């Protein structure tokens, strides 16, 4: 199965920003992940390879280098908790434990009901409002456990 016409056209437009098409590969991977279920499937890699004139393994080589790309299916919601220094100093471990407790997901895993994937991430540039988590691409900062309840409580 190839990429939809719309998505292929969008990627084509991205490629127009660069003197060499390949430069659009990472932005294209983003668009695929955003629109095709939150992860990059082997099929997506094959489709992108065809579009860019690359071998699928080259696309895999790039996708696997970048932590934002999920190469396995994820839950309905992805919760990324920063565990780097500024967040650690202000309670990131407690936040992470709490997130796992509420969602039922292990760190770097998905809850049995498929609702949540929880992961740790490195510094997200929210250090002066630490600790923080990213829920489905939106930052939540200045966290305490009550705020975590509020943010995730809406979803569980």
């Amino acid at each position, binding site marked *: 199965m190839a990429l939809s016409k719309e998505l292929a056209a969008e990627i084509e437009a991205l490629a127009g*920003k*660069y*003197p*060499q098409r*390949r*430069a*659009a*590969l*990472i*932005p294209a*991977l*983003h668009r695929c992940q955003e629109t095709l279920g939150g992860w990059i499937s082997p099929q997506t890699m094959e489709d992108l390879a065809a579009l*860019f004139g690359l071998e699928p393994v080259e696309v895999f*080589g*790039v996708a696997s*280098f*970048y*932590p*934002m*790309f999920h190469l396995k299916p994820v839950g309905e919601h992805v919760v990324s908790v920063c*565990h*780097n*220094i*500024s967040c*650690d*100093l*202000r*309670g990131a*471990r*407690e936040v*992470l*434990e709490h997130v*796992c407790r509420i969602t039922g997901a*292990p*760190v*770097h*895993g998905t809850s049995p009901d498929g609702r949540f994937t929880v*992961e*740790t*991430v*490195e*510094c*997200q*540039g*929210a*250090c*002066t*409002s*630490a600790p923080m988590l*990213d829920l489905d*691409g*939106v*930052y939540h900062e200045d966290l305490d456990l009550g705020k975590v309840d509020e943010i995730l409580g809406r979803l569980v």
Partner: protein
Amino acid sequence: MKTFPTYLLESSGASGAHRLAVYRERGGYRALEKVLKTPVPPAQVIAEVKASGLRGRGGAGFPTGLKWSFMPDPQKDPRPRFLAVNADESEPGTCKDRVLMERDPHGLLEGALIAAYAIRAGTAYIYVRGEYRTSYDRLQAAVDEARAASLVGQRILGTDFSCEVHLHKGAGAYICGEETGLMESLEGKRGHPRPKPPFPAGSGLWGNPTTVNNVETIHNVPFIVDRGEAWFRSMGTPASTGNFLCGISGHVEKPGVYELPFGLSAREILEEVAGGVWKGRRLKAWFPGGSSTGLLPASAIDARMDHDSIKAAGSMFGTAAMIVLDDQSCVVRASHVIARFYDHESCGQCSQCREGTQWLSQIFGRIEEGGGLPDDLATLEGLARGMAPGKTICALSDAAAIPTLAVIKHFRSEIEEHIRLKRCPFQIEGSARRAPQAVGAR
């Protein structure tokens, strides 16, 4: 508290400050217009920036005008030329570029256009870290507005100068903030830094002359052009001119990103700007400029925050991201968190870095958890010395080695105590607890 003239965050409170109309009302794009319509020759823009003393805000403090002057003469070298704005901000503790991009995207855009004009680049890419969605959206809206107003694209403001500006989204790898890793990544590859030489000015994006500058660096440029180099030098110290954005995080009462002149003492910043150490506690240690800069003990807090003074104090100015540790925190735990980060982010090309970061992380981890071996201190020191300085393709290896050597230098006895007691001697806020077990690394 003393007050200082500000300019970088001048507009930050204003509503709609990120919109073109509001930006123009406060004099936005005046500098670009002056340069293009006078016209000021590119060499003169470079000379002005050189004279201002502006130094790069991306971590190395390299003089910006000098960097621009490395670009080859376009008369002799007809290759296309590029500007790459480094908005990959991911040095732990650092969140200043995000503030600028979210609040003042046109400021960055105007700076990028003037920089591109000065180095005669026809295309500028802004490499924005993938997680910064708001920054990206604000910048994209700014580029669209600017294009509609003839400020981006062909024949800008009706002059001969044309410049395309494109945003490029990264995907979460710290190493892509290193300038040659950034270029590889922008070309659609793994972010593997390139050996230098050749330097980007000679062979950068797709083998063409390229200048890479940090967001905050570029943000300073319109102000220098508009108000003059003498004005710029009136702030800061002779060797570190202008204001800088100081992000102060960790155990302080008022963490935040503050605009300050170079040369204030770190004590003034900690106590007067950031409200002091939180919870009435005392200072134990602090990083002056992000996790790559060696931590300093409390006794060094009177050092001034400028490149030379922090160097004299035994560390580095870095990204001016001060990270503060109170007297109840554990430097071994902090070292483990940082070492784990470099292990995760090493691109793996150089064995010293690939293996070294892994060992540093493992050893700090086992010391913190009570499994440290008597030889571990010597092992850490030996590893770090084997990783730096300048032994690898890029400076990530140094960035991991430097904080290791610093913690050993200033807190040797605390590490020894961990090893001797077979546990962390600090019992606060979960420091002795193990992190939840990771299931499968990613």
